[in-house]
């Protein structure tokens, strides 16, 4: 039995619609997940900042002059700022996810 092209196209369209509705979307994270995320972002930025500053101090101390701990202190402060920037970005991202999930559930209730 040869498949009817019209029906096949129709089936394809319906499949596409279904798939678009079920496309993998990130589920909004739980409260504990959000808290953990913010905590790691803050601490990680401090560690990376401190590490970078320490590395610069080490390089300068090795080849130019002993600056320890000037750069480490400066970069820990910058790291704190970067941590806050990360948290703001993470919060924006999570807000977008929650809004997307909200829109999806509205659509499902509406239709």
């Amino acid at each position, binding site marked *: 039995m040869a498949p009817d092209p019209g029906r096949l196209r129709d089936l394809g369209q319906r499949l596409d619609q279904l798939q678009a509705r079920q*496309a*993998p979307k*990130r589920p909004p994270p739980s409260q504990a997940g959000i808290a*953990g*995320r913010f905590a*790691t*972002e803050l601490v*990680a*930025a401090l*560690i*990376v*900042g401190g590490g*970078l500053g320490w590395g610069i101090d080490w390089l300068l101390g090795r080849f130019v002059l002993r600056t320890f701990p000037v750069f480490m202190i400066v*970069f820990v402060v*910058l*790291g704190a*700022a*970067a*941590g806050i*920037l*990360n948290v703001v970005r993470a919060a924006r991202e999570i807000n977008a996810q929650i809004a997307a999930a909200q829109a999806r559930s509205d659509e499902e209730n509406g239709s």
Partner: protein
Amino acid sequence: MNLNPMEQFAVKPLIAEPLFALGGHPIYFTNQALLMIIVVIASSLFLTLAVKPGALVPSRAQSMAELSYEFVGNMIHSATGEDGLRFFPFVFTIFMFVLCCNFFGMIPGSFTVTSQIAVTLALALLVILTVIVTGFVKHGLGFLRLFVPKAPFGLLLLLVPIEVISFFTRPLSLSVRLFANMLAGHTMLAVFGGFVVALGAAGGILSVLSLGPMLLIIAILLLELLVAFLQAYVFAILTCIYLNEALHLHDHH
């Protein structure tokens, strides 16, 4: 009876003799290495053998393999667009490796490779290295614009180091998230397991009470199965998001 909940995370050499020395450090064949080899062999074998028949109506194993393939493909496509699909092998490998490590870790008595920060950090560094190389190959030195937000020159002196630190935070937060989730979940399971044993050994009415933590373990076990999948997914989608930034720079602003 060993009730130490952290005991399960101990990395032990399986062969007493070191395999070889690397820069003066002896390299042992550990339980962690064994588990990683098992995971790689098992997942490769499963994925190749499952799709071998190539049946139009797939068997259960074949549809599992095809579903995971499509799942990752859709994820990359939605996060990075068409040109991100070149990284499909990379992202798929990372996803399957983390997923299988998490699931093999759920088998009682085995070892959770992803609960070691050495492993997760190595994976995250691999991801960030790929992102940096991709960025420089695609945009040349223009990739450095990623670190320069729109701001007056005076502020840039302050903002560029902050952006650089923020960028290098990624491998750390990526690896810490995976490692902390696996560590916390498995420790919790072991702690409640310890409660069951201790209460059961106490005798009398206390032995009956040991049913409480037992039921909790079942609930946590189910939750852990979800976490095992979710963390592999988070790891993979964040890889895609970082790759997207390297591919398209400031498009998302």
